[in-house]
Structures are given as structure tokens and as C-alpha cells.
């Protein structure tokens, strides 16, 4: 009995003690506030110290969010090293890796919805196709960089068209999304063709070659992610057209697009093109799994192609086929760096970006070497590194080739609903391949797209 009492006493003593400790923790803070009020200087000093931890960016460091450890992040590291070596040796760039581009989009959405931008970094990497709508919807999330000391005319016009909003520059282009068509030269040869047959060819000729290649080697001449199908966009851009016209979907009345849908359908039927279930299947199963004799996509797909070491030296690149022949050029899915509304030191951010991605040969050379990031800065693309032959691609100077092709990419009408359109067109294509009527499916896709665009406009 007695022991129990003692235990209870002890327990309550501990509880009281911890309560007191809790108070004690809070007390000095209150105490500290009182004298601070007396001497204004002290208060200011401590107030300045407190946020300094969160915003070390004040002096000479910047925080950037980016994705893709094999591509964009080496480019950012190259830029940091360049700036350190040539401008400010004390500069640090704090690169925070995100698992995918949508992480950054969601962060902006959340910040914009709550009106609290304080969690955003100084600079973000952002997908080109999304930026226009994000700037329109969350105008406080980004600041324009129009007054940065950059020769904007030195960049590819098509690339800049994404990050220029209401005539103001918002972004610094990082990579160059120019589309390449890479072919396995050895497999083409087996089927009796060469890379020169593919250059400037028509889709009709392409299908003929594709059938021969599949028959001889069992490999598809083209593959794409069937769920996020970029073929329509790329093939249409190569014709100089878009899925949008005057801000409205341009699908069922777009004869060229209908023709393209029919070509894709024919390619799928004849085992020329393989539509994978999703992006992972597209890269891992079709490209790394060595199912294809050709890859067509933005040149950022090159690191994926190169993962199959035993095919080194068997690939070469050229331009895309078109409906009437004569070389097609398109671009797909690049990104740019944007200064956020939460940036602590916009001048430093602009200075850093201008001195690196604004046209520094050193940055772009190392970005290419370490990450395979091809610039769309015309003068930087003429350096020696770009003109070196690449062993994997049969010692051809593919990077110079890509920069050259980038100059031919037509500027087409862009729309904030690019990815929405892609989603519905991809769904239509799957249904068409499963036997549905082409025009009905395209009408469905168009209706759904219009429905969604109206919803956002309300």
C-alpha cells in the first residue's frame, strides 16, 4: 500500500516536473522579448538573424529544384562550376532533386492555391508545355527575366516561344527538345536499306522499310508510349501544323491530322510501329529491351538509347519522315529555368542564369559531356565538343547535327492544353487500333478537349 502511494507520488512529481519544464522552455523566450523591446537595435539584429537561416540565398547562394539526375542535374552542376570559376568563387548552388517534373508543378499549384509562396526555391526547372498556363493562373509564382543581360536572339526561336509570355522573357532555356530519328543502321542494312534512304523520306516509304525490317529482323522500326502518345504532335509539327488553331482544338477538321492518324493506324497494323502501354514500357521494354530498330523522340531520349551497351556504333540519326517527303523537323518536351516569385535575390538569380545558361560555352560543353544536354543556344552549339564524333552513334557528330536540325523546327501554335490534347488523342488512337471508327473517335477526343477547355475558361 505504501509503496503504491510512493509510486503515485513519484509519477505525479514527474508529471508536474515535465509541465514545469514545458513552461520553463517557453519562459525565456518571453523574457527575451521584453528587453528586446527596450533596445530596438537588438531586436532588429535578432530578427535579421532568424530568417537568415531560411534564406541563406540572400548573399551568394541560390536554391534550385530540378529533376532527372542523369540529364538536367549535371547541367545545373556544370553551370554552378562555371559561375564559381569565372564570376564568384564563393557562390553555391543548392540543387534539390525532385523525382519528376510534376512534383514541381504540384508545388507551384499548392503554393498558388494557398497564396503562400514562401516554400518555393529561388529557381525552378519547369516543363515548357506547361509554363504559359502556370504563369497565367499563378502570376505571382514567377517573375520575368526580361532585363537579364542575355542575347535572346542567340536562342532557337521555337524554344523561346514557350517561355516568352506577353512579349516578356520568363525563362532561361536549358535543353533543346529537337526531335531526332535514330535508326539501327545494321538492321536497316539487313533489310536492304541505308540511313540515306530514311533521310527526307515519306511516311509511305517509311512503312515499306518498316515492313521489310520487321520481316527480316523481327524488330519494330518505331515505338511510342501509347498512353502519352507524342506521335500526333511530332508528325503534325513536322508538317508545320498544330492540333490547335486560334486557341481552339483543330482535330476533326484538320485533314492532315486525320491523315496522320490513319498512317499511325497503318503502321501499327503492319508491325511497323509498336505502342507501349505506358512510359516505363516504352523506355524499358521497347528501347532498352531492344525491341526496336528506330527511335523517334526529343533528343533527350539519347541517354535511354545508349543504355544498351552492346548496340554501340550501330545507331545513326537523321530527320523525320513527312507525308510528302523532304525532311521533317519537330521538337518535344524540353524544359527551362524560371525565377520564382519567392526568390530572395532576383538580381543574383538573373546574373547567375545569364552568365551560364545565357550562352556560356563552358556551361553548355560540360552539360553536354556530363548529361547529354544539347543546347538551343546557337553560338554555344558551335563549340568543338559539339563537333566531336560520338562513338555510340557510329562516330557521327550527332550533337552538331541536332543543333543544325533545331534551326529548322517550325514554330507552331502552342496551347496550355497540350498534354490534355495528347491524353485524349492517345485514347482515341488505342480505340482506333482496337477497331473503332476513326472519325467518331477523333470527334470524341475533340469534344472532351473542348469540354475541358470550356471548364477552365468559366
Amino acid at each position, binding site marked *: 500500500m505504501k509503496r503504491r502511494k510512493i509510486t503515485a507520488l513519484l509519477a505525479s512529481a514527474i508529471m508536474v516536473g515535465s509541465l514545469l519544464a514545458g513552461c520553463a522552455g517557453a519562459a525565456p523566450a518571453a523574457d527575451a522579448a521584453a528587453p528586446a523591446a527596450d533596445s530596438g537595435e537588438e531586436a532588429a539584429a535578432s530578427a535579421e538573424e532568424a530568417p537568415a537561416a531560411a534564406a541563406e540565398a540572400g548573399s551568394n547562394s541560390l536554391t534550385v529544384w530540378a529533376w532527372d539526375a542523369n540529364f538536367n542535374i549535371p547541367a545545373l552542376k556544370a553551370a554552378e562550376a562555371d559561375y564559381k570559376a569565372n564570376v564568384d568563387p564563393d557562390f553555391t548552388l543548392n540543387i534539390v532533386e525532385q523525382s519528376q517534373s510534376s512534383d514541381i508543378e504540384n508545388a507551384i499549384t499548392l503554393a498558388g*492555391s494557398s497564396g503562400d509562396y514562401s516554400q518555393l526555391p529561388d529557381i525552378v526547372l519547369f516543363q515548357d508545355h506547361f509554363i504559359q498556363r502556370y504563369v497565367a*493562373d*499563378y502570376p505571382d509564382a514567377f517573375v520575368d527575366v526580361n532585363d537579364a543581360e542575355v542575347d535572346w536572339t542567340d536562342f532557337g526561336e521555337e524554344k523561346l516561344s514557350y517561355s516568352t509570355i506577353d512579349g516578356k522573357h520568363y525563362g532561361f532555356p536549358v535543353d533543346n527538345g529537337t526531335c531526332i530519328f535514330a535508326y539501327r543502321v545494321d538492321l536497316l542494312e539487313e533489310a536492304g536499306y541505308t540511313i540515306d534512304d530514311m533521310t527526307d523520306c515519306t511516311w509511305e516509304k517509311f512503312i515499306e522499310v518498316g515492313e521489310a525490317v520487321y520481316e527480316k529482323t523481327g524488330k519494330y522500326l518505331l515505338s511510342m508510349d501509347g498512353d502519352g502518345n507524342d506521335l500526333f504532335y511530332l508528325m503534325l509539327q513536322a508538317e508545320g501544323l498544330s492540333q490547335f488553331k486560334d486557341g481552339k482544338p483543330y482535330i476533326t477538321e484538320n485533314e492532315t491530322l486525320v491523315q496522320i492518324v490513319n498512317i499511325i493506324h497503318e503502321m501499327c497494323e503492319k508491325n511497323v510501329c509498336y505502342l507501349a502501354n505506358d512510359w516505363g514500357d516504352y523506355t524499358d521494354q521497347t528501347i532498352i529491351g531492344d525491341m526496336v530498330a528506330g527511335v523517334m523522340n526529343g533528343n533527350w531520349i539519347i541517354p535511354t538509347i545508349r543504355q544498351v551497351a552492346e548496340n554501340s556504333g550501330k545507331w545513326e540519326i537523321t530527320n523525320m519522315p513527312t507525308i510528302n517527303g523532304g525532311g521533317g523537323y519537330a521538337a518535344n518536351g524540353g524544359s527551362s529555368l524560371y525565377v520564382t516569385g519567392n526568390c530572395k535575390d532576383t538580381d543574383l538569380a538573373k546574373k547567375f542564369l545569364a552568365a551560364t545558361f545565357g550562352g556560356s560555352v563552358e556551361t553548355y560543353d560540360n552539360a553536354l559531356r556530363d548529361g547529354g544536354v544539347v543546347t538551343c543556344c546557337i553560338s554555344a552549339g558551335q563549340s568543338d565538343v559539339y563537333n566531336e564524333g560520338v562513338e555510340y552513334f557510329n562516330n557521327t557528330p550527332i550533337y552538331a547535327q541536332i543543333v543544325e536540325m533545331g534551326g529548322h523546327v517550325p514554330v507552331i501554335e502552342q496551347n*496550355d492544353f497540350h498534354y490534355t490534347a495528347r491524353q485524349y488523342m492517345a*485514347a482515341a488512337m488505342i480505340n482506333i487500333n482496337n477497331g473503332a471508327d476513326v472519325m467518331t473517335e477523333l470527334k470524341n477526343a475533340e469534344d472532351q478537349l473542348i*469540354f475541358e477547355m470550356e471548364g477552365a475558361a*468559366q
Partner: protein
Amino acid sequence: MKKKGKSIQAKQQRAGWIYLTPATLLIFVMSFYPIIQALITSFRTGPSSRMKWASPLTWNYTRMFQDKLFMRSVGNTFLYLIVQVPIMLILAMILAQILNNKDLKFKGFFRTCVFLPCAVSLVSYSLIFKSLFATQGLMNHILTSIGILKENYNFLGNPGSAKAIIIIALLWRWTGYNMVFYLAGLQGIEYSVYEAAKIDGANSWQTFWRITVPLLKPTIIMTFIMSINGTLQLFDESVNLTSGGPANSTITMSHYIYNNSFGVGVANFGYASALSFFVFILVAILAAINMKVGDTRD
């Protein structure tokens, strides 16, 4: 004396309320407040940084009935519900009956085996099913090598088979979970009741329908409500196993709601909230019907 008794009761009541307060406050702040906010949001439109009242106010609600894709997601969800829930509950009942057999050996082992899938995270099991049924996956390998399939079949690339895979995955994941409820219910039934029935000459079929089912009724209703509720809110499988594809043929309501808030493009929170309330009302109606049907009290 009377006065004192009252005050004790009042004291006890007050103590009860004090004990309840923290939980009540937390539930209000963490659940009810967001629900009310979502209801308000569902009457608004526009980009989330500067939302405005919809005109007319019910615009988001009327819009969803013209949304073919949302209607398709409703259809998909109900298909899963109608096909999967009965199969799952019947299977769970059969398994529970087997495991409740007094003569069964290694009961604990089998019970663990059946229940184990519930311990697996929804995302990881979805991804495992995805790789199992991939075109170059294990299932295709097995089926072709034993000669059922001639060549690899793209299970997740065809609308019909993709739906079937989702249903199979759901069965695998949730049957054991429901089985445990039935097993607990069965163990609560006195064995003497069965003995009495046996003496009266009832066969096992009659015993099942006349004794087990009526006595398990509360459990059965509970599992029904939980399964309906869970299926209507199905999300992980649709997102991770098929990404709603091919061509949105497996997309669920919750997945579509997510797509409207964080999926392709910019947040459409107003519309997404309205869709959520549609699901909320559906769940409420179905649960009410279920309880009404199952209620045998006078």
C-alpha cells in the same frame, strides 16, 4: 440524498465531455472543417489562385453529367463494385467456413496466409501485379509455356483484360481482410447451436442458411458497407496498375478526381470538389439502402 445523486451524475457527465473534447475538436478541425471547405469550393470555379463563385452556383454539379469521361469512370467503378464485391464476399465466407472447421490442422498458418495480402501496401501490390501481367511478365511466361496462350498477351493494353486484372488484384488484396471478420463472427456462434441443429437432422446446407447466415448478418452488412465504400473510392489500383488506361477504360472516380486536381495541367479544384461530393452522396445512398435492407429490427 437525491440532490447529491444528481450532482454525481452531472459530475460524471461533465467528466465524460471533458474526455471527449480533445477527440471532438481534432475531428472537427481535421475532418469536418475541410469537408465544409470542400463543399464551398465545389461551388467555385477558376484557377485556384483566384477562384470565384460559379454562375449559376451549381455549374460544377450540372457539368459533371455532361462529362463523358466522368460518366465512364462512374461506369467503371460500378462495374468493379458489381462484379468484385459479391465474388469477394462469397470467397471470404467460404474461406472462413473452411478455416472454422474444428478438424483443420495448421489453422493459424492458413489464416495468416489468407490475411497476409492485407499487410501489403496498396501501391506496392499494384506495381507487383503490373509487372506480373506485363506483356513480358511472369503470367505471360507461365501461360505460354503451359500452352494456354500461343503468344504473349498484352493484358494491360486491352480494355477487357485490364478491367479483369484490376478485379483479380482487388480480390487478392481484400478477400482475406473480409474473411477475418467472418471468421471472428463464426467463432462467436455457440457450437451448441450447431449441435442442436444436427440432432434435429439439419444438413450442412440448411445449417449454413438457417443458422450461420442469420447470426452473421451484422457482420455481413458491415463487410458489404465497407466494401462498397472502399470500391467507390478505389484509387491506388487505377493509378498504379493501369494508370486508368488503356484509353481511360479502367479509370475510377477517385482517379478522375485526382486528375482534375493534380493530373494533367492546372488544378481545377472546384470541379474536383464537386465530383467528390457526388461520390460522397453515392456512398451515403448505398450505405443507407444496405442498412435498411439488412435491418430486421421492428
